């Protein structure tokens, strides 16, 4: 079961909801640089560009609008962050210690200086969430493939991904707060 774009197709596009989703998407993609005004501005520009493109409206019924808008937002986020090579800083870091299919916090690491430690701590005991992270580290990002590997219904993978998003958002917020406090000293 693939997730469908929500109310994103046909003539009855609920733009208030689309805009909320797109703004939240931009906010997430901005990573540590996330700010609501900035995210909203990016969502505005993406929708403006979408509606201004003359070739798009006639094909709207066949278009995967969510993916199209997401691509526009990604491009704008890329520009906003001015990081042409690396893109947004991932909340999760590449330095996860992995051993036997389990994530371990690094000993002695300051939790908020080392987001993977915070992440490992927070996903500990949640078999599916740990599995999603480990499979992702192995490059398996598709939800249906993750479900097959974990031998669980795909809905459980999506629920785990939701929990993961909340955790990564919380880690990002704590990191930002920590950096702000340090810079104000």
């Amino acid at each position, binding site marked *: 079961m693939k*997730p469908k774009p*929500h109310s994103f197709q046909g003539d009855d596009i609920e733009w208030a909801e689309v805009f*909320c989703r797109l703004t939240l*998407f931009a906010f997430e993609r901005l990573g540590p640089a996330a700010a*609501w005004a900035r995210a*909203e501005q990016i*969502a505005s520009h993406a929708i403006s560009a979408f*509606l201004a493109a003359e070739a798009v409206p006639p094909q709207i019924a066949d278009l995967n609008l969510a993916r199209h808008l997401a691509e526009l937002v990604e491009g704008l986020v890329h520009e906003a962050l001015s990081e042409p090579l690396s893109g947004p800083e991932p909340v999760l870091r*590449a330095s996860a210690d992995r051993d036997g299919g389990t994530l371990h916090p690094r000993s002695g690491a300051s939790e908020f200086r080392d987001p993977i430690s915070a992440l490992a701590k927070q996903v500990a005991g949640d078999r599916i969430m740990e599995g999603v992270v480990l499979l*992702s580290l192995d490059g398996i990002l598709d939800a249906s493939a993750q479900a097959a590997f974990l031998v669980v219904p795909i809905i459980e993978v999506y629920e785990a991904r939701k929990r993961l998003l909340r955790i990564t958002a919380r880690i990002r917020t704590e990191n930002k707060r920590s950096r702000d406090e340090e810079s104000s000293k």
Partner: protein
Amino acid sequence: MKKVQNEREILTRLDAVLAYDILTDVYSRQEVADLILDAGGDPEAIGKRGQSLVAGLIRDLIHPSGPKLSDAEKTKSGP
């Protein structure tokens, strides 16, 4: 070093995949609103501004010679 770079790319993609789920029916309207609220945003105000933005843009498309939506309105956003 290459492996670390690759993992970083993968993790960047994971961030993108988690975020992309927001644009699908994996998340209900209420869950989207809750996420915005939890991160300090105002979903109702954002939605209203979005609706108003699109109404203006569509008006401009239908009546290109009419009064234009100003750039300030196009990019106006909340606190």
